[in-house]
């Protein structure tokens, strides 16, 4: 019986700086993939069809061809979040989720069960613990991102993830924002067993700004719902600025710079909003 279906998109190649200049990426990639499956946990990797033959997957991870369009939108092949969620929903699992491909889950059976149980009626957005070495047991949590997101299937069906791609910023913020605007309960969770091997940011500024514009296209029609969240006057003004900039990119200098600053501020406003309901799981 499947308790949880977890979707991800494992890249064919992963590079991470290791001790002595060696590439720790292949080992970390394998360790992450091996850590996800467990009794009751079904794992799908949704990848562009051309990548699937090159993935060299461990047992228990099911490859699924991704819908096209990410490369055209963001400049590199990838997977739509809506596609990944739909594939997880198609398993019939009562709880579905998304995990970033470079997250290692060192969860005990009891922790897995607790996460699934808690995600039956709310969205759990888990921060990652940053480590500098695979064997490091303790590190700081990264509060400005959510690398494992779990939710019950009926809520997953209610979230509108069109236009967001795995590996491109903002999808995790939008899940939470969309849910909160719909009145869906969201909890931010920190658990030391959700680990990430530190590396410099992989995304590029144009993709970041492009994804931000995509998110604003979702936000603008629901501006009134956003106001009801009580984020404060500064957050609301930032949203209006971002909406104006997204609507008129041809106005040019210095709108990209404005959008980058305002987008950063809006991102941390979303984090603050989500952290109104923050929990630690031990």
């Amino acid at each position, binding site marked *: 019986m499947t308790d949880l279906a977890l979707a991800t998109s494992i890249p064919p190649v992963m590079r991470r700086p290791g001790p002595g200049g060696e590439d720790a990426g292949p080992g970390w990639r394998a360790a992450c993939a091996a850590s996800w499956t467990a009794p009751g946990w079904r794992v799908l990797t949704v990848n562009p069809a051309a990548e699937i033959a090159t993935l060299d997957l461990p047992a228990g991870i099911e490859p699924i061809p991704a819908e096209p369009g990410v490369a055209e939108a963001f400049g590199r092949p990838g997977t739509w979040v809506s596609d990944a969620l739909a594939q997880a929903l198609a398993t019939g699992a009562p709880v579905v989720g998304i995990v970033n491909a470079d997250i290692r889950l060192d969860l005990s059976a*009891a*922790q897995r*069960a*607790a996460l699934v149980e*808690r995600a039956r009626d709310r969205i759990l957005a888990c921060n990652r613990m*940053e*480590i*500098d070495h695979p064997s490091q047991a*303790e*590190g*700081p949590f*990264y*509060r*400005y991102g959510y690398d494992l997101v779990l939710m019950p299937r009926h809520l997953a069906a209610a979230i509108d993830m069109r236009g967001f791609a795995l590996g491109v910023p903002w999808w995790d913020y939008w899940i939470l924002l969309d849910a909160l605007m719909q009145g869906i309960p969201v909890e931010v969770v*920190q658990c030391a067993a959700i680990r990430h091997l*530190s590396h410099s*940011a992989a995304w590029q500024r144009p993709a970041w700004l492009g994804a931000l514009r995509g998110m604003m296209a979702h936000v603008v029609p629901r501006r009134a719902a956003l106001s009801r969240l009580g984020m404060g006057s500064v957050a609301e003004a930032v949203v209006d600025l971002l909406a104006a900039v997204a609507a008129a990119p041809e106005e040019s200098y210095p709108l990209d710079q404005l959008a980058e600053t305002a987008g*950063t501020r809006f991102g*941390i406003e979303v*984090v*603050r909003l989500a*952290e109104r309901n*923050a*929990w*630690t*799981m*031990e």
Partner: protein
Amino acid sequence: MTWRRRYVHDMLFGIEGSGWHPPSMRDATGFRWSGPGRFSILRVPLPEGAGRGEAHIALVDPEPIPEVAIFLNGHRLVATPRRLGAMAVLDFGWDAAAMAGERQAEFWFHAAALRQLPAPGQGMRAVGFRLSSLVLEPRQEGAASAGGALALIAGRRFLEERLPVTPGRARLAFLADGTARLLDMRLEAARLGPTPQAHLACALRAEAEALELAIASPGLPALRAAMSAAGDVTLPDGLSPRDTLLLARLLTALPDAYAAWLDEAMARAAPDAALLAAWRRSLAQLARGSEARLAALIADGPDPFAGDPRAAFAWPRAA
């Protein structure tokens, strides 16, 4: 499996308190430098009861972990530092006494050392440590209850309209007399009911947990109050029932005046944090004792609604 509620206070956002520079961001980590003094204050909402917390301090390797003392509502907390990647974490806990009767948590951070660093476009500035976030986990959460809401609303209106008090701006001088701690608290522009008080001189003497207090208006004899070591407050004789209540209200407001003074006076100061903490606790205890006395007088004393609330506060004249 344990789930613990976590309250996160991100220093990138607006804060209530003082002794912090504007927020900064470095390597996706937000923080505020403490400074320009050693003493920084952060006030946050927190349920009553015991709990634990973490002060996350951003480091730039190979920087040592800064030495920072932490207080909660005047209670010194034992803070244990540890290094966590590019952060230093100060772990601390508090018992129920630190939050007893408090409306919010007032954290004090006392940096052992300051250094001068350039600020973009602002010249040099004194900084202590980079506080990124304060994470608080109460061990037990009080159950919210709607009971008594009407009484609360009525009571607040009564206090604001019938017994309005403003402590004004405090100026403080700390003295000692043998083992006794002395505090001269001068209140400027205070109000007792409808009556402005240009200057009120409050002389407090604390010894062995007991407190003596004399409050004087210029040219008039001092009113004397006291608090026993057990926290029982005795209010001065010679005042009308309404004015006795007003004076008790003033005593309950002294911690607020003290907090405002801290915000104002601690910039660039090198304070004796232990002494400040001792007075913080004494004034909080005096406020709680005065509140208890006020409650008893309103409940069982002369009719608090009798008399004209617009009548001036009447200081007793010398016999």
